[in-house]
């Protein structure tokens, strides 16, 4: 193997490049898959309700679910509880850069929690906490529990005070890393989230101001106003903060089929809400993760082509130069199988060496980039022990398979012809 050092080194470099790409792309795809799996787990643990006029991908739009409708849905057969939800960006976008920085996964988000509801997500019953506790019924409106990445990004500890959209909040808990949505979430009471949403939205803000003004007018004064004006005041008073609900989450009773419950809600409220069945939503998410699996497969194929052909080339050259050696081995009793095995193992060694170096460089790049992006709270790569073992096994198998054909050719070489190479 090291007789032609330069050629072997170049082959190893070829495999190194392929396996480097495989390691980097693969760990990026793993990270994506982990994030998607977390989202899928959450979304399939509940029946999701969206207001009419929005879609799943435009979550947090300007349409709302009236609180009365949610109350009625909570009485549908099989429904255990309904929770209202409000979601908005943690920070107001920079007017000069409204699209913001590239974000891997969900952007930092405020999640309003319906603490009075007994709703419970089937797959996310509890969250592992890094410190403190999850927001719960009875907590104050100025208390928040923050995700792992948010805590790192803002340097928060339990007991710290943090400012969110101009308001002061006390951090009561930090969620442990989930590598998915909650890492970027700030959980607060529904009331606070609604107020921040209204503050951030000029239309809602004006409705709220008009409602507040209208509320100041006493019923006696209202009666004195002209008919048209009185109607305007009553319309303004109709705005209720509780109606500012962007989505609903329904948990079902034990023993109920979530698809059946979702269909019941759909049948009764199809004019008011969009009902997202957990099973169908899970299937949609599976399709998305298939793309990232294709990334792993694609990078593996590149590694396979680059590495495989360089091993085949090296082994064919090497074997043609070692014809005489093969003849000698046959003359002193080597079987075809042992000759094939020797050369296959040699190719396997080249494969595994290139694989280890490629993976080493890949891991260095990953840790460096993750170290940089971790400061802004979003690690791009996920490396697991299983994946690392997989990369090493892959490079070994690559070497063995690529070496097999030249090795079998070597083993079938006519011993007399080989010896005549003297």
């Amino acid at each position, binding site marked *: 193997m090291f*007789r032609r050092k330069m050629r072997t080194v170049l082959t190893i470099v070829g495999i190194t490049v392929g396996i480097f790409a495989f390691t980097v792309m693969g760990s990026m795809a793993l990270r994506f898959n982990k994030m998607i799996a977390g989202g899928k787990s959450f979304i399939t643990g509940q029946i999701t309700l969206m207001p009419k006029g929005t879609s799943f991908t435009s979550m947090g739009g300007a349409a709302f679910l009236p609180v009365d409708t949610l109350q009625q849905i909570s009485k549908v057969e099989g429904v255990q509880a309904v929770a209202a939800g409000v979601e908005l960006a943690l920070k107001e976008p920079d007017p000069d850069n409204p699209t913001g920085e590239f974000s891997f996964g969900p952007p930092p988000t405020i999640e309003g929690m319906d603490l009075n509801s007994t709703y419970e997500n089937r797959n996310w019953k509890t969250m592992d906490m890094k410190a403190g506790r999850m927001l719960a019924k009875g907590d104050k409106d100025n208390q928040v529990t923050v995700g792992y990445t948010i805590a790192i990004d803002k340097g928060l500890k339990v007991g710290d005070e943090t400012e969110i959209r101009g308001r002061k909040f006390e951090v009561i808990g930090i969620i442990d890393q989930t590598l998915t949505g909650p890492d970027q979430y700030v959980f607060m009471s529904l009331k606070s989230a609604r107020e921040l949403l209204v503050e951030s939205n000029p239309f809602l803000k004006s409705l709220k101001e008009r409602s507040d003004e209208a509320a100041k007018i006493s019923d006696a004064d209202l009666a004195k106003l002209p008919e048209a004006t009185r109607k305007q005041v009553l319309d303004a008073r109709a705005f209720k903060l509780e109606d500012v609900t962007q989505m609903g989450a329904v948990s079902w009773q034990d023993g109920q089929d979530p698809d059946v419950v979702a269909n019941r809600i759909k049948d009764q409220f199809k004019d008011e809400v969009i009902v997202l069945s957990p099973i169908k939503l899970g299937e949609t998410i599976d399709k998305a993760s298939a793309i990232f699996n294709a990334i792993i497969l694609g990078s593996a194929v590149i590694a396979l082509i680059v590495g495989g052909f360089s091993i085949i080339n090296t082994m064919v050259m090497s074997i043609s130069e070692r014809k*005489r*050696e093969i*003849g*000698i*081995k*046959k*003359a*002193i*009793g*080597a*079987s*075809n199988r*042992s000759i094939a095995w020797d050369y296959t193992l040699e190719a396997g060694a080249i494969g595994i060496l290139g694989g280890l170096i490629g993976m080493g460089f890949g891991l260095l790049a990953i840790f460096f980039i993750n170290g940089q992006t971790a400061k802004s709270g979003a690690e791009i790569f996920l490396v697991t022990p299983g994946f690392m073992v997989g990369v090493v096994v892959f490079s070994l198998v690559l070497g063995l398979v690529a070496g097999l054909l030249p090795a079998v050719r070597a083993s079938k070489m006519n*011993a*007399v012809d080989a*010896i005549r190479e*003297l």
Partner: protein
Amino acid sequence: MNRTLIHTENLHKQYRMSKTNVVHALRGVSLDVQEGDFTAIIGPSGGGKSTLLHILGLLDKPDNGTFILDGIDVMKMKEKEAHLVRAKKLGFIFQGFNLIPTLTALENVMQAGRYGGLNAKARKTRALELLEQVGLHQRGNHKPNELSGGQQQRVAIARALMNKPTIILADEPTGELDSKTSAEIIAMLQQLNKEHNQTFLMVTHNLDVAAMCKKVVKLVDGKNET
């Protein structure tokens, strides 16, 4: 009477070089080698000596004829069985020494033991014994290019002896050595023949070397010369 190790009758071998060019390498060679023999095969170039040696070494197959090797009918033997017979019953010594250049002298000798089914420990012990026997016990860690021609051939002899072969086939073992070293190598082979009753069959051009052998077989145009 000594046991017959090789018995051939009317061996034929031809090579088809092209549609019209067929080379008749062997045209009916008959040969008997008994245990303890030291036989030389001589004859002009192209007479079929090397072809016969390759056939006797199971590296090539005759087209027809009879070939019994230590009681085994080689004509009926499958290729899968041939390597084991090669490893256990035959030893080879080549003109160009044919050591594996990347292995040390010790590893070259041990290599034959691997194919003969010896375990690593037994291989090493036997290889060290043999290197001592050929006077190279202190050169075991040297690569072939660090050894003289005579030393390399002695390593090749040790390798040929590794699996205690029934017969050692030697193809011009002194062809690349000076006369003094040639004499030393032949003396070593004779000593092995005499003291260990090791059977040798040697192809040579050198009539002086052939004269030192117990039996001489001459091949001309692929046939025994009577």
